[in-house]
């Protein structure tokens, strides 16, 4: 079985300050981390690998200036990773990336399961998984909390309204994960050092492909254009309740009741 995990990176939120009034994001420390939802997808892939055996292949969800996320995936337990070199766009473009990834997956010889994040922390992209499923004609489970594979199908838990539901789809399929779904494991220190030093078997597990060899130049033309940016309005402040304990409880209950959907 081959599992494809699609991973991206995001500026570490601990290193940035958002100033809505100035309309700017100040970067104090330019460090990148794996997209949290993608990292859950990687964890799910490794859990499935441990349970039923699989080859886990990591691919990037955008044209990245470096291959750090793929190296991290290899250090964490992925078997193989392909860095796809292309012109990084100012704007993440799931439409273009879906075309590139489809070609890459075909070149890999297909897959049984594609896992990725249901959303990204910075741009809130959620189209990549659904687009791939649509193009491949595969079933998709969007926003999973867990996923396991048995008897040729994938079974996942996803949130549905106020509760959780089990859903099942035959393989091959696409599953996307919500951030925080699983507690991701840490990379293995020794694998991490080896993949960066380029020593041992693991160094050969990272390949580099060119996007222009995978798809036509037309397919790489961006589908999105950035016209400007605006910050959301400042949130309304809460209300401070006063009075006796009973009065406070009553007003709080009334306020909550007023918000209930009819």
């Amino acid at each position, binding site marked *: 079985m081959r599992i494809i995990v699609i991973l991206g990176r995001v500026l570490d939120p601990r290193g940035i300050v958002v100033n809505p009034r100035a309309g700017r994001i100040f970067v104090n420390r330019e460090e990148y981390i794996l997209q949290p939802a993608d990292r859950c997808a990687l964890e799910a892939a490794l859990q499935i690998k441990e349970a039923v055996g699989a080859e886990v292949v990591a691919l990037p969800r955008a044209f990245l200036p470096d291959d750090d996320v793929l190296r991290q995936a290899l250090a964490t337990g992925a078997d193989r990773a392909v860095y796809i070199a292309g012109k990084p766009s100012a704007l993440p473009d799931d439409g273009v990336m879906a075309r590139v990834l489809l070609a890459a997956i075909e070149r890999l010889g297909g897959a049984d399961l594609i896992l990725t994040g249901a959303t990204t922390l910075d741009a809130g992209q959620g189209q990549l998984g659904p687009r791939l499923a649509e193009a491949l004609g595969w079933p998709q489970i969007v926003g999973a909390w867990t996923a396991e594979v048995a008897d040729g199908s994938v079974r996942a838990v996803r949130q549905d309204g106020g509760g959780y539901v089990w859903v099942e789809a035959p393989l091959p399929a696409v599953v996307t994960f919500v951030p925080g779904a699983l507690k991701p494991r*840490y990379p293995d*220190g*020794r694998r*991490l*050092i080896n993949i960066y030093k380029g020593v041992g078997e693991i160094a050969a597990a990272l390949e580099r492909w060119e996007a222009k060899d995978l798809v036509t130049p037309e397919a790489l033309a961006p589908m999105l254009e950035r016209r400007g940016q605006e910050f959301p309005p400042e949130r309304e402040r809460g209300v401070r309740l006063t009075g006796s304990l009973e009065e406070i409880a009553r007003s709080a209950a009334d306020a909550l009741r007023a918000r209930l959907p009819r």
Partner: protein
Amino acid sequence: MDFTFSPEHQALRRMIREFAETEIAPVAAELDREHKVPRDIMRKLGEIGLLGVCFPQEYGGMGAGETGYCILMEELGRVCANTAVNVGAHIGIGAMCIHLDGTPEQKRKYLTPLARGEKIAAFGLTESNAGSDAANVRTRAVREGDSWILDGGKVFITNGGYADIITVLAVTDPALGARGGITAFIVETDSPGFKVAREEDKMGIRGSSTAELVFEELRVPHENVLGKVGEGFVTFMKSLDMGRLTLGAACLGGAQKVLEQAVYWAKTRVQFGEALAHKQAVQWMIANMATEIEALRSLVYRVAWLVDTGQPFTQLAAMCKLYGSEVLSRAVDMAIQIHGGLGITRDFPLERAFRDARINEIFEGTNEVQRIVIASNIFREFGVRIRP
């Protein structure tokens, strides 16, 4: 000259920082309050390979060199002095002796489980009459056929209360003293005759074990002699050189953290109608702290580079320890001053940092001993030999 960290060291730091902030920082206050040794954290550190950070991969290590080890200690020092002390005693001195002078067989048997964190190490040098005067050890080892019989004891042994393997310094020939009469042994703590006599109740680093150990007719096989018979003192001094450097790295992390806390507080706290950050008195304290920390950082990583490139570093390692511990103490002191009365309450982490910082000026060679090391090296260059 290139001051940038290699990509593998940058990746290593990212990994360690995430681990430290997720797994250690949330429990740091509890370790101190409950007087708890972070065994669980040690196990997890071992599982992802960090307890073998500087040891070769053939013995279960990571092979990230002394620079990697300094990064580990800096990041641990940032979030939890206790974890840093446990790890420092384990890797930096306990297991380090075996790494430096062990035979391939000893490394396979002892260094491998230590590097993986399956076993915990301690370093048995200090005795009640041999602290700074390390050559004055009295623990006796007598040869009996294929074994040595150890009698005596050690005090203030970090990790001593729960270590599985302790490297112990003992006198094998009283006539020769430190020059040929002291030998290092690898002692397994489940051997008959090994006893943990008591645990110290300390002001700081309360989440670490500081134990008094007693050896009564403790039998150690001859193959557990570390290095050559009579040359144990040299092995131990070499390990301490390494330990001193990484102690400086842990101080660097701790000082950087309190600087950040002080800056945050200066930004938030308003007095006389403006944030403390706008007061020159506070700005100068922050500037002094930051300057010293930056100087320490340059020193620590330069010495790490000397170690990794096989150059002499004894004198500079002593400077790392001396300067690092003092920079940390001054930084914590100034951070508390900026916080005012709140700084000494248990609601803020500075109170703990203040108690934890103090030991750094004492253990792994007091700062006075470091000055002796530095001065004797300098005077030697001018042909003057000074004795402590």
